[in-house]
């Protein structure tokens, strides 16, 4: 009996030790219960947000950055920039006195300069660059943002001035440079590792200029960082940052309650009510930078008729979907961009939910006994947590107006591939999460003519809309761009290539002792500026 008591005492002791983490560790330590392991520590090579959280958002900086908690572009390693009159040359004036991290394998002998910018971009841009093929050499974000075709050349003007020469004017260029793939590596570190015969080390043992430097990574277990004392914006208020990798959302919540971590991402919708009631937890909330939709194939009759699409949209009870599928963690979408993005047109009026009017309109258009397919994604996404259930609800809604729906689904890779097909049979449930906070990233990528047969799942190429978004690409004035994008949203609503369904609402529970954690609109977790009581 005494032994049992001792054992229990030992367990309690261990738990208490965990609870008193801040007192025990040297300085202030924040524990983030992250949802998974990073694929690596070079954000240019990967596309997962989990990887960006572990690398670009703590260890690195880009030339520009997004203001924490917003999509506003701010200077970072570039103090300022100029644009040539033809909109094709961006000249960046680099910040002086920026230090790189010192690690066991690398002690920098110089500050950040233009060579580092050239190294970081030329590695991705130039197939003959000595580092291009290292670690697999797939730069999917660089490619998917069309940087390969957009950039003509990158030139070092002097040690602190770099010029990006483009093939065409591209207003979202600056926003692209705020993305994770565009972070700056140390060219000196890369040289050293190449000489040592281990060039791939730069991708797994990162050296950046960011507020935290990597101390240790144990796959699927823990990532440890310490604050970089010479960080150019000033040392972070936290001394240590730990990612405790915890894949299960219920377990993350238990750890948060037990004080084993301070911040957790992706809570279970079912746990939100309990979190709101918990006196130790602050439940933060923000609209996500995404949109979930049902994309008709606008090349196939009767969906090639915008009036049919509009009539079908009126049959959808979006409020019910938000309640049932999102359990409150979502809002009805009326535009193809979320309200958090500048140029969102709030004046647009959504199609009303009116099954009677919908049925009448379909009959008037001669669309009777319509049979169609709805594709349900096999995976969970923030913009659609349960596509199968959503498809069933749409099936019931459409049945009310006399449209018979067959639900189909495929393995995720197959789904993505087959749904691109120009002659695809049926409407596809899908969505989009913004990369850089620019409306172009939504409207041009998933509704532009270039995306037909690819990311544009409605296969919709409508010239008046296309003209507006192409014009907005080359106009530098934000007010003028806003006007163009607002007009484009009006056209979108009238033409209805999709039924816009929902924007998710992101919830993030943090313990009460956490100060100034802000939900990142891009879905990231940024800990510079966060403190502990």
């Amino acid at each position, binding site marked *: 009996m005494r032994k049992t008591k001792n054992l229990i005492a030992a367990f309690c002791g261990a738990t208490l030790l965990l609870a008193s983490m801040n007192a025990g560790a040297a300085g202030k*330590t924040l524990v983030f219960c992250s949802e998974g392991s990073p694929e690596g520590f070079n954000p240019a090579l990967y596309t997962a947000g989990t990887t960006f959280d572990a690398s670009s958002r703590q260890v690195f900086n880009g030339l520009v950055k997004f203001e924490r908690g917003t999509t506003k572009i701010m200077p970072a390693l570039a103090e300022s920039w100029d644009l040539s009159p033809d909109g094709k040359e961006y000249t960046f004036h680099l910040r002086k006195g920026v230090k790189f991290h010192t690690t066991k394998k690398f002690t920098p002998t110089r500050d950040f300069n233009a060579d580092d910018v050239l190294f970081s971009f030329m590695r991705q841009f130039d197939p003959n660059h000595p580092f291009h093929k290292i670690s697999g050499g797939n730069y999917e974000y660089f490619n998917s943002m069309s940087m390969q075709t957009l950039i003509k050349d990158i030139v070092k003007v002097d040690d602190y001035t770099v010029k990006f020469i483009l093939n065409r004017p591209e207003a979202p260029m600056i926003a692209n440079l705020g993305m994770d793939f565009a972070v700056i590596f140390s060219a000196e570190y890369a040289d050293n590792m190449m000489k040592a015969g281990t060039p791939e080390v730069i991708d797994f043992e990162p050296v950046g200029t960011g507020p935290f430097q990597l101390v240790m990574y144990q796959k699927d277990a823990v990532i440890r960082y310490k604050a970089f004392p010479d960080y150019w914006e000033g040392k972070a208020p936290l001394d240590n940052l730990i990612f405790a990798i915890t*894949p299960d959302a219920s377990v993350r919540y238990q750890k948060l309650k037990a004080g084993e971590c301070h911040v957790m991402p992706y809570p279970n919708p079912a746990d939100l009510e309990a979190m709101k009631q918990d006196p130790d937890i602050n439940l933060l909330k923000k609209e996500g930078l995404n949109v979930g939709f049902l994309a008709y194939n606008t090349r196939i009759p009767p969906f090639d008729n915008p009036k049919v699409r509009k009539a079908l949209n009126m049959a959808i009870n979006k409020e019910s979907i938000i309640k049932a599928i999102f359990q409150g963690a979502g809002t009805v979408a009326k535009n193809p961009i979320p309200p958090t993005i500048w140029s969102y047109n709030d004046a647009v009026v959504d199609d009303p939910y009116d099954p009677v009017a919908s049925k009448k309109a379909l009959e008037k258009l001669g669309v009777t006994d319509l049979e169609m397919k709805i594709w349900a994604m096999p995976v969970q996404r923030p913009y659609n947590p349960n596509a199968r259930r959503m498809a069933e609800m749409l099936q019931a809604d459409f049945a009310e107006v006399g449209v018979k729906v067959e639900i189909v689904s495929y393995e995720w890779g197959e789904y993505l591939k087959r749904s691109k097909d120009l002659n695809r049979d049926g409407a596809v449930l899908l969505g989009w999460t913004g990369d850089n906070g620019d409306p172009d990233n939504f409207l041009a990528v998933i509704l532009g003519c270039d995306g037909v047969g690819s990311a544009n799942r409605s296969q919709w190429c409508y010239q008046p809309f296309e003209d507006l978004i192409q014009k907005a690409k080359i106009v530098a004035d934000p007010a003028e761009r806003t006007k163009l994008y607002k007009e484009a949203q009006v056209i979108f609503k009238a033409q209805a290539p999709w039924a816009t369904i929902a924007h998710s609402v992101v919830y993030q529970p943090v313990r009460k002792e956490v100060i100034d954690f802000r939900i990142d609109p891009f879905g990231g977790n940024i800990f510079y500026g966060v403190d502990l009581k």
Partner: protein
Amino acid sequence: MFLYLFKKLAVTIPTFFGVTLVAFIFIRLLPGDPVLLMAGERGISDERHAVLMAEMGFDKPILVQYGYYLADLAHGDFGTSIITKRPVLEEFATLFPATMELSICAMLLAILLGLPAGMIAATKRGTAIDHTVMTTALAGYSMPIFWWGLLLIIFFSGTLGWTPVSGRISLLYYFEPVTGFMLIDSLLSGQEGAFQSALSHLILPTIVLATIPLAVIARQTRSAMLEVLSEDYVRTARAKGLGPQRVIGLHALRNAMIPVITVIGLQVGVLFAGAILTETIFSWPGIGKWMVESIFRRDYSAVQGGLLLIAAIVMLVNLAVDLLYGIINPQIRHTDS
């Protein structure tokens, strides 16, 4: 004995090749490919898709790919993960000790509790004890691991606060892994309280992972014991006036162990399967979770390499079980020879 070992090994080698083929084919039969999944909603042009597949060697005929794979294996190269770009063997070696440590503890718990429980149930056949043991075993066998794990976490970690929620050791302790076995590394670190912390983190996952093998072992021991206890030689031993402890411990148990050991050997495979869920619930950085993620991402190299290594370990354990038969019952060894 050597001939016996040789014969067993000779059977193992073709099985190993069979596993290479199954592992290779299995992952390629799944729809989708790593490039499509990597691109996600963003999509990828057909040209770029073809380039990336070619860079990874997936554009070649499947037999040619298999040939390259075997040639690499012959050189001890299990390939490089498509996702993390790290050697598969290195990733496996990093994660395997965690699974091994948990599996050993779970198996020990299952044997230490399952064997006596089965023996007691057999000797007290038809009593309330027997019914209690068998009902508990059935409940344990039928329990969904995920639900059971969460229940234990909520009760022992959440409500009572006795055990940590998940992980292998408190984040307070920080040392470089030496063996990968946290119990050993925590002792080697010399940090006060580290070993206790590692031990406390093992308790709940061990219970969860041991539940099914424990139930199976208890049931198997009971039925094997019942069969042996009705044998003539046991009756003779009793008639000679031997005490019940000697009859059961010396005569009955040894013979009842043969089917029990078979079951224990087979449970190693079950443990690896159970580890997938247990490791996910308890954030245990082992190979179970790694394999599942690799399958989801169509990381061909990681899946085929991981499956092969796991299969090799299961085969080795079963080989060891075969050899154990010979030690426990020399008749088997002589018959096979």
